[in-house]
């Protein structure tokens, strides 16, 4: 999915592929290593929850805003979660070309929608205020600032930490004059309830390069990967959505190996992220 056309020469690709065979990548990592991840939470003041993630030189911002809205007909007692991904032209000038940018953004958005479209990821019934009339709509906006490969993992880390940081105002339902329920917002802005994120999935991309599969591929490694599998893994190792990308084909055994490998790495990511979010002290904003 190397959208921004950084085409390497065959010799460089050879060097990378043979390196991965020897389990020694060009930046010294082995096949199951992640690059260091820098994460900051609550970086934007006028959002209900936000986070900034930097994985290697991939950088993105996730902002979560909640709105009151009407629930869907089919699901009167549930709120909704909507994803929107935007690639800022800062990432690379190629992001300006509408077509290429739209495919890249659709790819991420559809994977997020696919892994959150189930009962377990977010408890949507907790978002409902008045059955059939009023519920919370959670807008998750992802803004990609720099592309350094492995966008999907970075996005899901950002979304999970932003959702955990999200504070939904605690709403009081009072019966109004002619029996109509009325909703009253709390006056203290800090009287908020949090969404439970312990079943939120993290996307893990396992790319198959040469004859081995690797995790957390950089842009160069992505351009020489023949096939990659993206999967949403919950904390308990359940799989919430799988999709194969890049136009190569895999024999069934390697596909099974990659699924197992992705599940193991996904659970490690969850553990590391939760440890970090617990011990995260407010105040160190992203850029300064």
């Amino acid at each position, binding site marked *: 999915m190397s959208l921004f056309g950084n085409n390497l020469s065959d010799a460089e690709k*050879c060097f990378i592929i043979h390196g991965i065979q020897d389990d020694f990548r060009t930046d010294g990592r082995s096949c199951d290593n992640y690059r260091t991840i820098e994460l900051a939470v609550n970086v934007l003041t006028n959002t209900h929850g936000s986070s900034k993630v930097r994985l290697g030189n991939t950088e993105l911002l996730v902002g979560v805003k909640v709105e009151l809205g009407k629930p869907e007909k089919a699901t009167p007692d549930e709120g909704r979660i909507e994803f929107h991904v935007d690639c800022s032209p800062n990432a690379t000038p190629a992001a300006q070309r509408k077509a290429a940018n739209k495919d890249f953004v659709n790819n991420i958005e559809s994977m997020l929608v696919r892994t959150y479209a189930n009962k377990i990821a977010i408890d949507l019934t907790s978002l409902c205020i008045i059955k059939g009339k009023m519920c919370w709509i959670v807008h998750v906006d992802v803004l990609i600032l720099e592309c350094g490969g492995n966008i999907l993992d970075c996005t899901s880390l950002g979304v999970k930490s932003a959702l955990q940081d999200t504070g939904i105002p605690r709403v009081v339902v009072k019966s109004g004059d002619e029996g109509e329920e009325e909703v009253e917002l709390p006056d203290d802005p800090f009287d908020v309830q949090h969404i439970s994120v312990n079943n939120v999935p993290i996307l893990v991309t396992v790319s198959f390069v040469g004859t081995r599969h690797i995790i957390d591929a950089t842009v160069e490694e992505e351009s020489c990967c023949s096939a990659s599998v993206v999967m949403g893994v919950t904390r308990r190792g359940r799989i919430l959505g799988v999709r194969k990308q890049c136009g190569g084909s895999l024999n069934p055994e390697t596909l099974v190996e990659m699924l197992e490998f992705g599940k193991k790495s996904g659970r490690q990511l969850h553990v590391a992220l939760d440890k970090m979010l617990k011990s995260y*002290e407010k105040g160190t904003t992203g850029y300064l």
Partner: protein
Amino acid sequence: MSSSTIVIKAPSKRRNNPIYAHASEVFLVTPGDVITEDADYMRGHGTYTNAGDEDNKLYASVAGVVERINKLVCVKALKTRYNGEVGDVVVGRIKEVQQKRWKVETNSRLDSTLQISSVNLPGGELRRRSAADELTMREYLKEGDLISAEVQQVHNDGMLSLHTRSLRYGKLGQGCCVVVSPSLIKRRKNHIHNLPCGATTILANNGYIWISITSGDACNEGDGGFNVNKEPVPLEEREVVCRLKNCIQCLAKSSVMLYDTSVLYAYESSLQYQVKEIMSEKVSLEIVNQTISLLEREKTGDG
């Protein structure tokens, strides 16, 4: 650090580099500052004079260090695009194959061109360029290939035309390429170094740094260096190349001048760490400080 632990940490407070005591006597300017007012100077890069006022004040147009070489006054900015001079060693990536030439991306203002006439085609130099050559250009060099070349000529609008008519230049084989700002590359007599640790680095003037193993076989005179060996590189040599790459990236991040001695010092001071640790925050700072102190000792030692 066990192999697959995942490190997630809060963004580090941007540490600023230790500022050395005598940084003050260096003359720093920012755009719009007046550098000198006396008339006898030659205007160099990074400066401009206002046609309007008559007392020909010299203003700085970029932020950086003022350098005075007898009459010539110029301001050296920290990060710029490469403006080429004739004879510079350059590493570039083929961007487009056109009728009689290749367009090469060289981190400069405009794409440079490599004419088919300024390339050694297989079968020695004297071969006349026939129409058939023009049709099979893509076999020699195609999009994405990395080449090392020399600047043959600079056109008036700044476009460079390159040539690879010597054994040192040609298509680059297995290895990796790091892009840094051209002003970090110290201008030396020789930019292609076979380092003692078994790797060949080309610190090209245009900021593209190519690191590859010292290929013993200099056998490719006959074919103009166009076919490249593709067998796997043994692990130890690969480690040397990757360690060098990480060291160079550390130096570039803290904007230390890059030339063979500084790269070697950084390599030596990085030997005690694993290759993948070099890029982590504290280790890279440690390496940079050690390199600077070694350079300092070398300068005062024979200075």
